[in-house]
């Protein structure tokens, strides 16, 4: 059997497996969790933009609490995300709102005492 034929058969098998995976998603973990994705920090004109997605993989609709603290102000946002849903949160940070250059973020799943995502951003304005 030639190498070419082996490669062809292997390609077909791989394609079949991928097709099965994409249709039935057997590779998706059954673990139920919430994740933060597409997190980005962008420098704008006289501002910083912090952006991320909350992805709900809990298998059910879940509620989340997002807490922001900049030293000068705090803000709380509540959101309910259906299973498999994505919620995008964007926070614009301006020089006048930041004290000591720190922005604290904590994301809680409602009913849980500890955040499943926590971060501190050190912001500097030139």
């Amino acid at each position: 059997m030639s190498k070419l034929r082996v490669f062809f058969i292997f390609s077909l098998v791989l394609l079949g497996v991928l097709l099965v995976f994409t249709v039935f998603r057997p590779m998706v973990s059954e673990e139920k969790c919430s994740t933060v994705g597409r997190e980005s920090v962008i420098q704008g004109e006289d501002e910083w933009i912090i952006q991320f997605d909350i992805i709900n993989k809990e298998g059910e609709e879940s509620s989340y609490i997002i807490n922001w603290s900049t030293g000068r102000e705090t803000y709380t946002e509540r959101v309910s995300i259906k299973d498999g849903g994505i919620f995008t949160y964007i926070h614009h940070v301006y020089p006048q709102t930041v004290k000591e250059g720190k922005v604290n973020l904590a994301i809680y799943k409602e009913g849980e005492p500890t955040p499943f995502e926590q971060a501190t951003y050190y912001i500097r304005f030139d």
Partner: protein
Amino acid sequence: MVKMKLSCLRIVLCLAVVMGVCLFPSPVYAGATTGAADQTAYAVFQNNGGSVGTQIGLDSSPVNVEPGQYVFVCLQLNWTTVMKQRDMKGQWRTWGGTWQDMAAIGAGSSTAWEYWNSNYADHTVDAITAHFGDTNQKTYTFESDYPGYGGSYPTTNAVGKNESWFIIQAPENVGRYEIRWYDSESPYAPTTTVQIDITVVDYTSWGGIFYNKPGDTTEQTEAGTYANGLYAYLDEDNDGDPLTPGTAYTFYVNVHEWQGNAIASGGTLNITIPKQFTSVSLVDKADFYDAAVSGGGASDWTITGTNDSAISNAVDHLSFSATTPTEYFTNTNWEFDTRFTGTGGGGETVRYIVEAVVLVQAATWESYNDEAHTTVDDYFSTGEQTVYMFGEGFQASTAYHVAYYDGDNAKVLSDGVSSNSGGDLSSLCYFPTYQESAVIGTWHAVVYKDSVASPPETYIASDPNSVVEDSFEVTYEAIPEFPTVIAGIAVAGMCFGIYYWMRKRRLAYVKA
């Protein structure tokens, strides 16, 4: 000697003849003189489609007209002698300036008063009724245009009180003027004893602010509004457009003397400004030495001041700055209640009241399909994967939250963003982020104040806690999904292509 006596006698006789001839009336101007009269009253009227309209101001009182405005002027003249040319000429001058003849209509002068063509059919004698009651010929009217020499005025019955109507056009230049009429024959007569005090005021240049014009009785609940009265106006030409929200404007208040008489010092000026205006401060209070601003916050603003000297043939000014309200999403009128109470020349109480109205443009909040915010779009489909929200008229440099809700009213994005220093607010949402998770249909972009703890988790129509919202349609094409089946076919196609290419190469190699 005898010859000498005869010569003297001839000289005396010649002188006697000359003197005698001179004693007889001229055969050419036998007894004629220029007309003489006293001007006893006047009234000015608006032009209503070519006919006499509403009277401007009061009888024999100063009036205000607009630049280029056509007005009807009715004079009541008490003629003591017959006019010579039986026609009259008009003159004008800026206040205290030099008299000039009125220009003929069509002269095209923006600076001179002009006669309007009075030969329209609807300006015939019958179209004009007597205005003043105390006339010898109440129904007599007379039109004059320039040059209109020779015979329009009656040859008889011209002595006594008559009404004469003129149609004139104001110049474009604003200012205070005097106008008068006289017999066209030189030397001019009559010498007018009362001249018309007429001020050209550019109302339209005061943008969204309106005020009681002299003679307007609609707001005279406490006292009459007089031609020499109280005026509130704006500092710039807005062409009648509403004012921009969230913008500081300078407003002026002028107190004129009262019916030509001085107003004593010690009068009180009160201006009430709605609390929705912000940053109210005095700009010029030189004529009101103790003027001060109070209020604000939960209360309306108040400016109170006292004129420190008599107002005599002059105007006292006060100006203040105020920032127009924001976050009103319909054009909104705001009233500045402006009142002055003083003491007139005869010890009488003078009360002026002006309900100045400021029209402020509505704030905006719209969805666009381009980053430059040039094309408003409420339907997002193929090639339109981002909605760019933009609005004007928000509070300047203020924190907001823009919440986006999908077709299932679920919150998919919250953007914590501040308006800029000009009160503009912008935000965007990229639809493909929500492939397989968001629902197409009617989406909503709702603006909440930062003080609101959190935009609600699901969309609330006309949420009283929101500032403003806008809706738009998001179609399937705006959230392009690359289906797995298509992906599989693409992968298979690529595999086949690679296999076919490699096989072709191998066969070519074997044949060689």
